[in-house]
């Protein structure tokens, strides 16, 4: 970096470049909002799904699992759990309901949350809704 490239040129690139890319990012965000309705499975978001999302959050499921590939890597991906369980909500509910309180000896264990039937329904509905989001065919196969 010799004299031809001065500090004030560098500063202008910093301010100009940042401003330009902030605006571009906002424009892309705007377009994403426009495109969302066909992709984000919003028609499936019912009261029950919203309740399921709240339960998902308030029990910190993301602290062990990934959801659409984001979260923790300790336990199976759940974005496609509904599909892995043969699109069977009842099977999902049974799995969550039957976790032993003291865990499974030697095996990574999932807590027993003592959910009510209605709460289990909400969680299963939430997982069903997530599996309907257009993820560009991710994950590559049903194992997640």
């Amino acid at each position: 970096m010799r004299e031809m490239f001065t500090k004030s040129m560098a500063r202008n690139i910093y301010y100009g470049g940042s401003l330009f890319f902030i605006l571009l990012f906002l424009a892309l965000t705007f377009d994403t909002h426009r495109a969302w309705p066909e992709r984000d499975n919003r028609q499936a978001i019912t009261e029950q799904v919203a309740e399921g999302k709240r339960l998902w959050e308030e029990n910190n499921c993301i602290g062990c699992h990934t959801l659409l590939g984001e979260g923790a890597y300790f336990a199976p991906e759940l974005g496609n759990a509904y599909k892995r369980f043969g699109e069977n909500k009842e099977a999902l509910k049974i799995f969550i309901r039957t976790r032993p309180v003291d865990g499974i000896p030697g095996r990574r264990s999932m807590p027993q949350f003592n959910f009510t039937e209605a709460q289990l329904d909400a969680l299963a509905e939430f997982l069903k809704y997530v599996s309907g989001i257009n993820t560009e065919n991710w994950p590559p196969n049903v194992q997640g």
Partner: protein
Amino acid sequence: MEYQTQAIARPYFIAAIGLFVGQVIFGLIMGLQYVIGDFLFPEIPFNIARMVHTNLLIVWLLFGFMGAAYYLVPEESGRELHAPWLARLMFWVFLLAGALTVIGYLAMPYARLAELTGNHIFPTMGREFLEQPTITKVGIVVVALAFLYSIGMTVLSGRKTVINTVLLTGLVGLALMFLFAFYNPDNLAKDKYYWWWVVHLWVEGVWELILAAILAFVLIKTTGVDREVIEKWVYVIVAMVLISGLIGTGHHYYWIGVPAYWQWWGSIFSALEPIPFFLMTLFAFNTINRRRRDHPNKATVLWAMGTAVMAFLGAGVWGFMHTLAPVNYYTHGTQLTAAHGHMAFYGAYAMVVMTIISYAIPILRGQEAKSNRMQVMEMWSFWLMTVSMVFITLFLTGAGIVQTYLQRYTDAPQTFMVVQEKVALFYWMREVSGLVFLFGLILFIASFWPERVRQEQPLEPQTA
């Protein structure tokens, strides 16, 4: 120390390192749970340990950044800190809020904590890294505003150096982006889209400005190289950060229900993200080679060089490895992500905080540098931590490659749990490296313990 108020940095640094120890201990607990699945179950389930691990990380880095700002802003501005009482008060507020939150995580089921803190009124909890109760999040905003007030007033009424402006921009950005933590729509795609405005735009955006400013400050002080030259470098680095990193957010938008064009935008721009990290490495080595003085604090110079190299490796190289959409399709959310997350956070942010601590603590004690013996100990801690973090990263990378292949790539994919058992050996080795890391960290603390008899003096005579 030129200004009395710089001393406010000291408790911030001490708290940072204390919390760092806690973070690593919980990392080691999780590391064991990875291989002995029911370890501490159900007392400390994995998710709780993870929250403590990652939240302590963020909080101690924030303590580190605040300490760094309180130390360097008065010196750069050429005046005492504005409203020092506020800075002293906020230290205790932040520490208390942090401690209460961690106690809350450990003392009761998370759902109970959510209930107690009224999460249903304003739900923000239960998302990765943003697990804190809403009330804690409000506390963080209050602390950030008070901090920005003190620092902002000092900068605005003092000498405006490039380091100060870039640092302040980074800190304001940090506070601003955090506000998206309060946005939590029922629509998962939207939730995720804006969640990354906090997480990505922090570590690959505004935090990099803070990183560049702290590094530049330490380099000026330890090498005596002309400010003009350094400032030009800083501008070029931060320009590249934002030019690549803003649209680079797209590398998290491949598979979460947003338009497919993000695969192009994200791949292309995030492929440029290693450039600012590479420039930082060039900058550090260039400056040190052209030094006008040999600063007696050799350990600090080692930390500064180490930060530049490890940030490039962890963020630049390990980030690039999985950033292109066709690769990320297979590696998304595997141990490769964890490998990258560890080396990047350590190499860039943990190390830059240790760099400024290494530089500032002796000066806050009225010495220019520690005794030779203590510096040697500190350099040992540098190598122990850094080399064990390289090994942690390599073992997780090994686990990640095998996982990706067996679970995602082969014609006969196996289930998650089966694959995890097959890579257990990597996790055991990661745990052993983690123990070495903890030992290195303890040595770091020991090297700052006040010496009882100070026979030795700093190596070189002092030059101004």
